[in-house]
């Protein structure tokens, strides 16, 4: 479905708009406070951008260093060209460990490749342990936010869902703690019994082979410490060259994302430690379109994203349509530039237009991704690569450009526009007048007025007006 069509459906959901409006307004204010506390915030953003740009410019080298470091620390590194390869690797590891269930840390990369569905097809059940992911999974729903996948649901809806599923038959009451307790009881049994866990990665440090997961609930910590086998699926763009780079991102990420000075749980592990934590560690390095994004000199900055979701929370479009209208695990402004590049422009050609180019996303991005400029760049690519040069829009654009190309044609088009005809009048398309009036065409254009004013006998004709001197010959050619 195109974005405008999907948005039409979600816009009609008044409850969704209330839930989202409330949640995003709150987190927006909190983020602003958390960021204002740091006197060097702009320097941190610049550092974050520079580190990411360097990592992407030296990506092959960084990935090989990461592979060597992880291998040396007792881990096994796998390379996956696409989602199908990655899913097969994870399923193979689960199967060889006799697991019919795996527990999962919240991970966008595994959502991107549909790992849960692929495991299901192999007879392995994936159990989401992040509270919001669990809600989405139990409701057979789709994620609507990078950080808070169930942001579109309110407490009453979640209570009813739990009463129907994991707390079958039990009445949970209205307290958040009772609702959370139902999830805790359900998950605790899984943490203690399931032998294989799957995680994503916020960062992977090439220098040391350390993988980092940042979270709030502690359920991720359970997954990466209790099971015997741990599999991490990491997008290749998550690699950082050096250990010290973490210092920058561990400040940028929590403040941008949850508006916290520091996130509650930061788990770091390097390969395998005998007698402590998982005794088998696999790192699956996932491409799935990322090298294609890297080939686009302007679009590649989308790979710098650290998945904080600050751009979603400030986006006036996201706030109204919600995440599901973007039909991707990456919604909001970042999704509008990432999804079409990862999947190919033909798979999501309307997403680069899912923005009014207001610039709020760029202003908050912790790694300074110029999302509006990339949106405009991708629009150009869609027009050149996907659309017919004879489409009504392309023809209208060409007609307008031709009209603007000479003074004579422009003034002719202005006269036609006043009669409701010609390329300038056609620019006002039907979508406009559904809910807005068009301005009354004025009796004279500005230049008509200017010319009258400066002709002999006009109100400034008598004095030495510079305007009177600039009348060029009435020739349209440029």
């Amino acid at each position, binding site marked *: 479905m195109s974005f405008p069509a999907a948005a039409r459906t979600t816009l009609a959901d008044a409850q969704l708009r209330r839930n989202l409006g409330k949640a995003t307004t709150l987190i927006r204010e909190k983020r602003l406070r958390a960021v204002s506390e740091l006197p060097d915030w702009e320097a941190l953003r610049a550092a974050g951008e520079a580190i990411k740009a360097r990592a992407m410019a030296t990506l092959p080298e960084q990935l090989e260093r990461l592979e060597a470091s992880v291998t040396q620390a007792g881990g096994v590194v796998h390379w996956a060209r696409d989602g199908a390869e990655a899913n097969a690797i994870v399923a193979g590891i689960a199967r060889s460990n006799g697991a019919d269930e795996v527990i999962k840390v919240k991970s966008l990369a595994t959502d991107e490749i549909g790992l849960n569905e692929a495991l299901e097809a192999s007879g392995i059940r994936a159990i989401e342990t992040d509270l919001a992911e669990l809600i989405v999974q139990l409701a057979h729903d789709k994620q609507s936010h990078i950080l808070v996948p169930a942001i579109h649901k309110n407490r009453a809806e979640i209570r009813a869902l739990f009463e129907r599923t994991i707390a079958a038959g039990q009445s949970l009451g209205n307290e958040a703690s009772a609702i959370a307790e139902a999830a805790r009881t359900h998950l605790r049994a899984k943490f203690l019994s399931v032998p294989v866990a799957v995680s994503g990665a916020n960062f992977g440090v090439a220098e040391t082979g350390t993988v980092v997961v940042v979270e709030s609930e502690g359920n991720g910590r359970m997954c990466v410490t209790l099971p015997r086998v741990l599999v991490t699926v990491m997008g290749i763009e998550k690699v950082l060259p050096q250990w010290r780079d973490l210092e920058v991102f561990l400040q940028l990420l929590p403040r941008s994302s949850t508006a916290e000075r520091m996130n509650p749980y930061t788990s770091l592990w390097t390969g395998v430690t005998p007698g402590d934590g998982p005794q088998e560690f696999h790192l699956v390095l996932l491409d799935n379109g990322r090298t294609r994004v890297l080939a686009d000199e302007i679009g590649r900055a989308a790979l710098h994203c650290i998945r904080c979701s600050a751009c979603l929370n400030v986006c006036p479009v996201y706030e109204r349509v919600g995440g599901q209208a973007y039909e991707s695990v990456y919604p909001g402004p970042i999704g509008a530039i990432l999804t079409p590049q990862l999947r190919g422009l033909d798979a999501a050609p309307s997403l680069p237009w899912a923005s009014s180019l207001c610039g709020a996303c760029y202003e908050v991005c912790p790694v300074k991704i110029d999302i509006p400029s990339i949106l405009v760049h991708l629009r150009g690519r869609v027009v050149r690569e996907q659309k017919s040069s004879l489409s009504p829009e392309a023809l209208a*654009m060409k007609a307008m450009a031709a009209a*603007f190309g000479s003074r004579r044609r422009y003034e002719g088009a202005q006269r036609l526009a006043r009669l409701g005809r010609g390329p300038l009048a056609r620019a006002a398309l039907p979508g406009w007048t*559904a809910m807005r009036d068009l301005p009354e065409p004025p009796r004279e254009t500005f230049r008509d007025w200017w010319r009258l004013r400066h002709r002999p006998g006009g109100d400034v004709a008598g004095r030495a007006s510079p305007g009177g001197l600039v009348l060029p010959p009435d020739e349209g050619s440029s």
Partner: protein
Amino acid sequence: MRVALFVTCFNDTLFPDTGRAVVTLLERLGCSVEFPLEQTCCGQMHVNSGYAHEAAPLLARFERVFASDVVVSPSASCVAHVREHVPGVRAFELTEFLVDELGVVDVGASFPHRVVLHPTCHSLRLLKVGDRPRRLLAAVRGIDLVELDAAEECCGFGGTFAVKNADTSMAMLSDKLRHVLDTRAEVCTAADTSCLMHIGGALRRQRAGVRTMHLAEILAAQE
């Protein structure tokens, strides 16, 4: 000071009052205003819609027409566009020009009405004009300048966005309208006519009794 007015194709064709107000205002402040008649459109709509190729000759034309001038324009959005794509031309948005180049905040205007300012995305985030429009308005005699809730949020215009994503655009606009109406202002103003056409179009459809006026018209007024 001699300045060249870049009125924008939009104001030229649909909102001549805005251009007239800029001329009145600048002449009152001692500028001599030229209007190069060869100007047409800066190509912003083409670039933002993915037609950069079609915009290239328009940008070249803009550069040729305005090469040697100090350019003043009543559109933050168009100025941001030409500043990015034609860096050789010295172009100022009206409030930048008044405050930074002429060094005036009190422009001698008088407008005894209740006014609310929509600060516009491109004024704020592309040109970073900050509180210049607000300071200029605050110095107008008789004005009752009131605060707009969620002022910095986009009104939902966004050029072709308002047509391509009409439903989302309207959802954004209805929140902006609610905030405007909450202020009980008589006039909603901004430094960009395009946002005002969008906001004003809905205000008229709803017969809300609130007028939209470009900031230049208020600064030119001597009621």
